[in-house]
C-alpha cells in the first residue's frame, strides 16, 4: 500500500509584497519550516513542519507571515474527523502511543461559560475598589474551629504555631506545578521571580529544585511526586510548603513524563536521574497503595520538616473526587489541590489527556459540599487547578468553594506560549518547553517575570472590580458563596451538583 501522507495541520501564508527576505523567520524556526535559498535570495516555507507556534509571525518585521489552519482534505464526517483518521494512520505506521502537550482541547462543556456573577444594586451598594479598601489576602493551610489553649500551652505559643503553619497570599492566584525539565530554567526563573514580587507561590513540579532557585524558597511549594525526583532533605526544607502529587488533571492515573530528548546534564543532576533517559514517573506512589499509607507519608514529611510547614496533597479530578478529598483531609493534609480535566502537561498520551477526568467546576463544588457536610471544611484549604483563562474564571472558582487557584497554561501564555501542544518535542520556539540552549536563550527571565507580574496584577485588579460589584470587600466573603452565581443553559442535574440557581431566580 502507498505510505500515508499526513496532511499539514497549518499553512504558512507569506505575502510576497511584504516579505523582504530578511531571513529572521528562517533563523528562528526550530522546526525548519522556513528555508532560505541562497541563489534566488528568497525565503520559502515547508508547511508540513509548521506546528502553529506563531513565533515567526510574532517576529516578522513587516507582518508578511500568517499562520492559518489547514482544513483537512478528508471528507466532512461528523464521526470520522480528520484527526481521527490521521491518528489511525500514524499509529499504524509507528505502533506507538500518540503524545501531546498542554491541556484537553476537546469540546467538553466549559461550565465557567455557563455561570454568571451578581452585582449589587439599590438594596446593597456596590463598592468602588478604587476608593474603598478591597482585600484579596488569604491564608493557606488548615485552620482550627476556634482558639483552644490546652494544658501546658500558652496563648502566645498556640498563636505562633498557628501562624507558622499558614502561608499568606496577597492574591488567590498561584503558579501551578511545572517542572524544570518540562520547561526551561529561564521559564522557571520567570515564575519564581514573579511569585516573589507578587506575594504568591510557585511550584517545583516533579523537577526537583535547581540550586539557582533556592533563594526563591519562601515563595515555593516543593512537590513530592511518585518518582521522588530531586527529593532530599534540603529540598523539603527549601520551600514554604510541601505538596504530595498523587495525580494531575491532564493524565489522571498515570505518572509524569519527561521525554529523553529533554533530559540534559543539568536536568539529570537536578532530578538525580541518568542523562538522556526518559523520566517516567510511576503511576502510583509505590508507598501509597491506600489512604492509610498516604497518612503515613503526610506525617513522615511533617516530621521531616518538624511540623513547621504545611503539607498538602494534589489529586486529579475523577469520579470519586469528593470521598477521596474527604479522606485526604482526614489523613492530615493542610491543603488539597484538585486538578481538573483541562489541566496542562508537558507530555502525556493524548487519549488519556482527552478522555480521563472531570471538569474542575464540578469537582470543586462537590468537594466543598462534602467537606462542609462532614464539618471539616476548615481543616484544609482547597486549591483549584485546570484551565483558568481569566479573572472571571478565578472568581467563579472561589465562589464555588476554592480558597485559591493554580494557573499553569495561563502563565505560559503570558510568557509567549501559543498552545501549539508540541511541548513533548522539546523544540519550543518560545524557549519555554525546551532544554535546547539555542532555544532557551529566547526567554529572558527579566521580561518573563515582568509579564507574569503584569498578568497577576491585571487579574487581581479585575477581581477587585468584580468583588466590589457584588458588594463584597474581602475575598473570604466570596469563598463558597454560591448565591453570587447563577447558571445559564445548564440542566437541573448540573445545577444541583454545582449548587447554583438558574439565572432569573432571586433568593
Amino acid at each position, binding site marked *: 500500500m502507498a505510505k500515508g501522507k499526513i496532511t499539514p495541520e497549518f499553512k504558512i501564508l507569506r505575502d510576497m509584497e511584504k516579505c523582504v527576505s530578511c531571513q529572521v523567520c528562517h533563523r528562528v524556526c526550530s522546526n525548519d519550516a522556513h528555508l532560505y535559498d541562497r541563489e534566488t535570495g528568497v525565503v520559502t516555507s515547508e508547511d508540513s513542519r509548521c506546528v502553529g507556534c506563531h513565533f515567526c509571525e510574532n517576529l516578522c518585521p513587516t507582518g508578511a507571515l500568517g499562520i492559518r489552519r489547514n482544513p483537512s482534505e478528508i471528507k466532512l464526517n461528523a464521526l470520522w474527523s480528520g484527526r481521527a483518521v490521521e491518528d489511525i494512520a500514524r499509529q499504524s505506521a509507528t505502533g506507538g502511543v500518540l503524545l501531546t502537550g498542554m491541556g484537553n482541547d476537546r469540546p467538553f462543556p466549559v461550565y465557567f461559560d455557563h455561570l454568571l456573577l451578581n452585582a*449589587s444594586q*439599590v*438594596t*446593597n*451598594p456596590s*463598592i468602588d475598589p478604587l476608593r*474603598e*479598601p478591597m*482585600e484579596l*489576602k488569604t*491564608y493557606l493551610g488548615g*485552620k*482550627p*474551629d*476556634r*482558639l483552644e489553649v490546652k494544658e501546658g500551652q500558652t*496563648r*502566645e505559643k498556640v*498563636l*505562633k504555631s*498557628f*501562624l507558622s503553619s*499558614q502561608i499568606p497570599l496577597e492574591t488567590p492566584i498561584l503558579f501551578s506545578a511545572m517542572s524544570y525539565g518540562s520547561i526551561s530554567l529561564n521559564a522557571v526563573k520567570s515564575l519564581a521571580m514573579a511569585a516573589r514580587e507578587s506575594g504568591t507561590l510557585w511550584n517545583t513540579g516533579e523537577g526537583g529544585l535547581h540550586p539557582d532557585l533556592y533563594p526563591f524558597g519562601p515563595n515555593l511549594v516543593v512537590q513530592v511526586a511518585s518518582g521522588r525526583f530531586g527529593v532530599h532533605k534540603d529540598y523539603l526544607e527549601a520551600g514554604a510548603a510541601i505538596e504530595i502529587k498523587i495525580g494531575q488533571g491532564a493524565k489522571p492515573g498515570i505518572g509524569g513524563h519527561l521525554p529523553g530528548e529533554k533530559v540534559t546534564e543539568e536536568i539529570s543532576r537536578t532530578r538525580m536521574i541518568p542523562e538522556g533517559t526518559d523520566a517516567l514517573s510511576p503511576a502510583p506512589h509505590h508507598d501509597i497503595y491506600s489512604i492509610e499509607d498516604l497518612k503515613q507519608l503526610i506525617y513522615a514529611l511533617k516530621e521531616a520538616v518538624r511540623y513547621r510547614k504545611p503539607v498538602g496533597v494534589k489529586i486529579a479530578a475523577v469520579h470519586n473526587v469528593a470521598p477521596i478529598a474527604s479522606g485526604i483531609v482526614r489523613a492530615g493534609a493542610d491543603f488539597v489541590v484538585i486538578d481538573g480535566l483541562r489541566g496542562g502537561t508537558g507530555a502525556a498520551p493524548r487519549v488519556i489527556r482527552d478522555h480521563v477526568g472531570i471538569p474542575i467546576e464540578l469537582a470543586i463544588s462537590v468537594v*466543598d459540599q462534602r467537606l*462542609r*457536610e462532614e*464539618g*471539616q*471544611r*476548615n481543616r484544609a484549604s482547597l486549591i483549584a487547578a485546570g484551565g483558568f483563562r481569566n479573572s472571571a474564571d478565578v472568581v467563579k472558582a472561589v*465562589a464555588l*468553594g476554592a480558597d485559591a487557584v493554580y494557573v499553569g497554561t495561563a502563565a505560559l501564555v503570558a510568557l509567549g506560549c501559543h498552545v501549539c501542544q508540541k511541548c513533548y518535542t522539546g523544540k519550543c520556539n518560545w524557549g519555554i518547553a525546551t532544554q535546547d540552549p539555542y532555544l532557551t536563550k529566547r526567554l529572558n527571565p527579566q521580561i518573563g517575570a515582568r509579564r507574569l507580574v503584569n498578568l497577576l496584577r491585571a487579574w487581581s485588579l479585575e477581581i477587585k472590580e468584580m468583588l466590589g460589584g*457584588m*458588594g*463584597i*470587600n*474581602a475575598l*473570604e*466573603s*466570596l*469563598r*463558597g*458563596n*454560591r*448565591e*453570587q452565581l447563577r447558571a445559564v443553559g445548564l440542566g437541573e442535574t448540573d445545577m444541583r451538583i454545582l449548587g447554583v440557581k438558574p439565572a432569573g431566580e*432571586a*433568593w
Partner: protein
Amino acid sequence: MNREGKAFSGEVIIRAITSLHERSNGLGGGFAGYGIYPDHKEDYAFHVLYETEESRKLTKPALEGNYQLIQEEPIPTRQIDAVQNPPLVWRYFLRPRLERRISSVESEEDFVVRTVMEINQKKEGVFVASSGKNMGIFKGVGYPEEIADFYRLEEYRGYLWTAHGRFPTNTPGWWGGAHPFGLLDWSVVHNGEISSYGTNRRYLKNFGYDCAFYTDTEVVTYLFDLLHRKHQMAFPLVANVLAAPLWDEIERMEDKEFYQFLRAVYGSALLNGPFAVIAAHNQAMVGLNDRIKLRPLVAAEWQENLYIASEESAIREVCPDPDRVWAPEAGEPVIGYLR
C-alpha cells in the same frame, strides 16, 4: 434597654418604631421583648406561628415528645383591618426532656436548638418565632405599629425591647420572614443586605446550623449563637469577627498575631455588605455596624437606659433629653449589659 432590669411598657418601643414609619413598606414588622413572662422565668417560652389548625395539631406531638408541656395557649390578639388572614399564633411554656438528648454531651441549649431546627425544617406551615426563656418575639406582615396593635403589645412589660420595620427586597414578605429573627433567647433585627450570605450559610453548616428561611438575618442570629454561646467569645470579640478590621489595620495592632489568627480562622464568619444589627439576649443588647458603615446606627444613654436606633429621631421620641448621643464607629459594637 433598662440596664437595671426594670420593666417598662411595650408602648415605649411602639412609639419609637412608629416614628420610623417611612423606613418600612408595610410588608413586615416585629418586636422582641425580654422579661415579659416573669411567672414562667425558668421555662422556655416558644412563640409558634401556624398556617392552619391542621399544622398545629400535627406539631403538638413533636413538642410533647421533646418537652414537658407546662402551659399552652394562643397568644392574645385583636382583630384589626390592617392584618388580614393572620396565621395562628400560639405560645408554649416548656421544659426540655433531657432524657431525649442525643448524647450526654449535648447541652440543654443545643438540645433546644436542634429540636427547634427540626420543627422549622420538617414541619410544613409551622414556624418557631422564638424559643428563649422569659422572652418572646412578636412579628408578622404589616407595619410595626399594626403588628403591635394585633398582638396587644401595650399590655406587656419588659426590661429590654427591640423592634423592626421591614422593607423587604430579596424575599417576599411573609410572617416568618419579618424581623426579629430568633433562636433560644437571641433576637436580631437587621437593616441591610448580607452579600456574604452564601459563604456564612455554608460555614454555619459545618457546625450544624441549617439555614432554612431565605432571609439573611438568619445567619446573623446563628453566628451570634455560635461565637458567643458556643465559642464563648465576649461581645467585643464577636464584633471583631463579624466586622473584622482590615489586614492593614491588623498589621499595626499590638496583639497582631491574635487578630491575624482570628480573621484567618473565622474568615467565613465575616459579614460583608452593608448592615446595622441590634442583637439581644437575656443579659445584653448589642448594636453593630459593618466595617465601612454603610447603614445608619445611633446610640444614646439616659440614666440607666441604653437606646440604639437607626435614627436619632426614634430615640428622642421616647427620650427627649438623653445624657449622651453618639454614632458608633464602623465595626465598633455598642453593648448594654444587664447589671
